[in-house]
Structure formats: C-alpha cells, structure tokens
C-alpha cells in the first residue's frame, strides 16, 4: 500500500510541475530581461571585466559567491569533524 501512495504523490507532483513549466515562456525567448540587459550594457563600465558572468558573480551578486564559499568551507569542516571524531 505504501508504494502506491508514494507513486501517487509523485505522479501528482509530475503533473503539477509539468503544467507549471508549460506556463513558462517558450525556450529561447525570455519575456522580461530588464535586469540582464542592464548588466550587459553596464557590466563592463561598472566592473571593468569582459566576462559579464564573472562580474555578476564577484561584484553584483558577490554575497551569493561568499555564501557558496562558506558552504564549501562548512562541508570541509563537517567532513573533517566526522572523520576526526571516529578516531576517539
């Protein structure tokens, strides 16, 4: 019985995601690109690097990159603490 309920919920979720993705914009033609056009126009002037993705990563949204490096740092600490404890 448990298997069928799980399969049932997964099918419902599949239909839900399917319809949600269908109502998105067709692939290749994004509807609202104000933010990205601004970045492409002024990316070079404000941050001085040609690769706009790097300027987004390290200047416009630098807090995300900082959070992400702390995620990697926390994972390393977690792995080390787990293995270290075992030696006790």
């Amino acid at each position, binding site marked *: 019985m448990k298997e069928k309920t799980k399969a049932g919920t997964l099918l419902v979720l599949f239909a839900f995601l*399917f319809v949600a993705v269908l109502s*998105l914009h067709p692939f290749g033609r994004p509807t609202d690109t104000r933010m990205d056009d601004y970045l492409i126009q002024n990316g070079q002037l404000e941050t001085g690097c040609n690769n706009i993705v790097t300027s987004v990563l390290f200047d416009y949204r630098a807090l995300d990159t900082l959070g992400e490096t702390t995620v990697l740092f926390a994972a390393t600490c977690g792995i080390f603490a*787990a293995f270290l404890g075992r030696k006790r």
Partner: protein
Amino acid sequence: MISTPFMAVVVLVLFGLSAMVFKRNLIKIVMAVHVMGSGVNLFLISLGYRAGSTAPIFTNAPKLEMALPVPQALTLTSIVINIAVVALMLTFAALIYEHYGTLDARKRRLLE
C-alpha cells in the same frame, strides 16, 4: 511547440525524487539527490537562453546579441553547493557503512 529542455528538467527532477523515495541503498539515494540537483541546474541554465545569442563575454565577441548572464551565475553557485551536499552525504554514507557494515536503509529502519 513544447520547449524540450523544460520537459527534460521535469523528467530529471521526478526521476531523482522517485529514485530517492523507492531506493534503499544509501549510495543510490545520494546519486538520486545529485540527479535532482543537476535537473534543477539544467532548468536554471535553460531559463537564460536567448535564441541565436552567444555567451555574454566581450573578449572578441562575434556579435552583441548575448544570452542572459544571471542564470549562468546562479547555476555556477548551485553546482558548487550540490558538490558540497553530495560530498557530505557520501561521508555520512561511508561512516554508516563502516559502523553498521551495511548500506541498506531498511535494515536499520533508517528512512522509514
């Protein structure tokens, strides 16, 4: 016309979820999380594509019609986060295997 990358994304995410729910082996569960993560990354990347555009890099850029830079930055961040999640889960799976000698979730009433 149904935009195929979004369909692939839904299939990947659901594949990951169903494998995570039905499978018992810990390593398979970790793989399922990784598959789901790459499904969501594919979704983020395919949001930022403009038909007939190049990468948003101005070094010798062939044309000025460029794809959206922000989804690419988001995907880069979420890929690295997926690495950290999978690495931590593999450590726990290895240590559980070492402690219990088995990777089967059902034996230890792990994920019921």
